[in-house]
Every structure is written in structure tokens, then in C-alpha cells.
């Protein structure tokens, strides 16, 4: 049963992805990317990553969609028909994809409990985390305690991105400086 749901969700993800590429109406693209995130979150629940699913549903389907819609109101909502042929990118994508799928043969089978990833630090975290940190949710324990440095770095990245957006959009210094020049040029050009 779980297998069937998993396959259905993954196929729907692929279909939504293809629809995103084919559509030219950017509003539809943004809505579909929200659906894509929601499907992704459902898949994460199925794969036992409840914390990640939680984040993906809130971020991908919520905040990202609002941001993209906000940008669409500032720009144009229709994509122009490309002039170049998509043949070369298509060949590149197919060849790269074929190579990557060839590479998946060497990966351990999906769900294999003896995969190398499950035999390194993960058993230790699962065994020790609760009595070392008192948090039953191992993800939180690893995130905040064992990998505190990592998380500090991530928070700094978010901080930097927030500052970057503020710098790019809150003032319009560069534009204002350029506009008088253009205004000076235009009457001269017209005359």
C-alpha cells in the first residue's frame, strides 16, 4: 500500500515538473510549483521525514509561492516564446540523466537497513540522543546540539540572504542615480 502511494506521488511529481516546463503562463507555473512542493512534502511524510515535510509544506507551498506571486506583480506574467531551438539543451539533459541513472545502479537499494549511511553515526544518534540531550525528537537533538555549528552556519546564511534582499530592494539608490542621466540624454536624442 505504502509502495503504491509512494509510486503514485513520485509519478505525479514528475508530471507536475513537466507541466511547469511546458506552460508559458507564469501564474500557472507558480501555482504548479506550489503543488509540486505540497506533493514533495507528502512524499517526505511517507519517507518518515516528518520534520522535513513540515518545513517543505510551510516554505515551499507557502512562502515561496507568495514570494513568486509578489515578483510576478512587479514583472511580466507571460513568458515569451524562445527564439533558440531547445535541441542542444534537450540532448544535454538526456545524456546527463542517462549517466546519472547508470550511476544509481551502484547505490544501495531503497530502504536497505544495511546501507553504509545507516551504519555510521546514525545508530549512535538514535541510541544516545534521548538520554544525552533529553529530546525524544532525534532530529531536533542532532540539529541543535550535535550539529550546532552547522546550524549556526545555516542561520548565518539566512541572515545574510535577508540582508542581501534588503540591500537590493529596500533603497533604489542606483536607479535614482541613473535616471537623471537617461532623462538628460533623451531630450537631446529627440531633438
Amino acid at each position, binding site marked *: 500500500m505504502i509502495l503504491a502511494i509512494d509510486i503514485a506521488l513520485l509519478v505525479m511529481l514528475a508530471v507536475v515538473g513537466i507541466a511547469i516546463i511546458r506552460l508559458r503562463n507564469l501564474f500557472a507555473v507558480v501555482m504548479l510549483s506550489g503543488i509540486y512542493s505540497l506533493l514533495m512534502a507528502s512524499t517526505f511524510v511517507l519517507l518518515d521525514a*516528518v*520534520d522535513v515535510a*513540515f*518545513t517543505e509544506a*510551510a*516554505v515551499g507551498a*507557502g*512562502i515561496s509561492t*507568495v*514570494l513568486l506571486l*509578489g*515578483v510576478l*506583480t*512587479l514583472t511580466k506574467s507571460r513568458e515569451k516564446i524562445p527564439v533558440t531551438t531547445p535541441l542542444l539543451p534537450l540532448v544535454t539533459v538526456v545524456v546527463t540523466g542517462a549517466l546519472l541513472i547508470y550511476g544509481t545502479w551502484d547505490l544501495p537499494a531503497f530502504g536497505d537497513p544495511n546501507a553504509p549511511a545507516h551504519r555510521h553515526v546514525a545508530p549512535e544518534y538514535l541510541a544516545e540522543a534521548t*538520554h*544525552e*540531550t*533529553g*529530546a*525524544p*525528537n532525534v*532530529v*531536533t*537533538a542532532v*540539529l*541543535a*546540539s550535535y550539529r*550546532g*555549528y552547522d*546550524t*549556526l552556519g545555516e*542561520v*548565518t546564511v*539566512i*541572515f545574510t*540572504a*535577508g*540582508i542581501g*534582499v*534588503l540591500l537590493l*530592494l*529596500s533603497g533604489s539608490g542606483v536607479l535614482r542615480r541613473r535616471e537623471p542621466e537617461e532623462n538628460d540624454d533623451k531630450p537631446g536624442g529627440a531633438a
Partner: protein
Amino acid sequence: MKHHLILRVIAKLTIPGILLFGLYVQFHGDYGPGGGFQAGVIFGAGFILYGLVFGLQNLRRVAPASVTTTFIALGVLIFAGVGIASQLLGGNYLDYDVLAADPHAGQHLGILVVELGVGITVAAVMITIFMTFAGRER
């Protein structure tokens, strides 16, 4: 959105729930799914919903740009400050064992404070990003 009566009423009903849920996720992250990142996003989403329905001016009144900008830095400072505090108490950087009398309580306190820092920064960044995009004139 002055004319969308249903939207306004529903938003008024749901926003307190969203904010409360955000706080629950923030402080219950040790025991169930949740934590600073999720809570920050949910808390920010509550404010963004308010801004979408009641207009940017009202959102600015609730969350002035100066406050949100300060909170962006405050969260990172709280996180880094916990590291400094544990160093001053004789441990390694971000080693929460020394924060309280026994390591168990120390870890618990450390995780709680660090997650709070994460939540503050994430929520403030989300609100700030939304406000800067929405406040941009076409």
C-alpha cells in the same frame, strides 16, 4: 482588499491560531516534529497573511521595519551568544553541558535557547523579505 469580507473575517479568525501554532511548534520541537526553522516560517506566514489581507500599511504598523531588521540580527546573536556563554562557563563553544547544574538540564536549556534564536531570525527574515518585495513600487 477592502471588499473581500469573507477573506477578512476568515483571516482574523485564523491568524491567532497560526501564531499560537507557531509558538507550539517552536517550544514543542524537542518532543514532536518541529523546531526553530518550522516555527519561524509558520510565525512569519501568520504576519504575511495579515499583510496580504489587511494591506502593507497595517503590517508595517504591527511589525515596523526597524523591529524586524533588529530581530534578524538578534536571532543570530542569541545563537552565537549561547556558544560564548558555554565558553565562559568553561566548556567548548556550543557545548551545552555546562549551561546548567547537570548536563541533562544544560542540554535541554541550550537546545531551547538556540532554537529560539533560529526561530527569531527565520521569522524576521521571512517577514522582511515579504515586506521588501510587496513594498516595491512597480
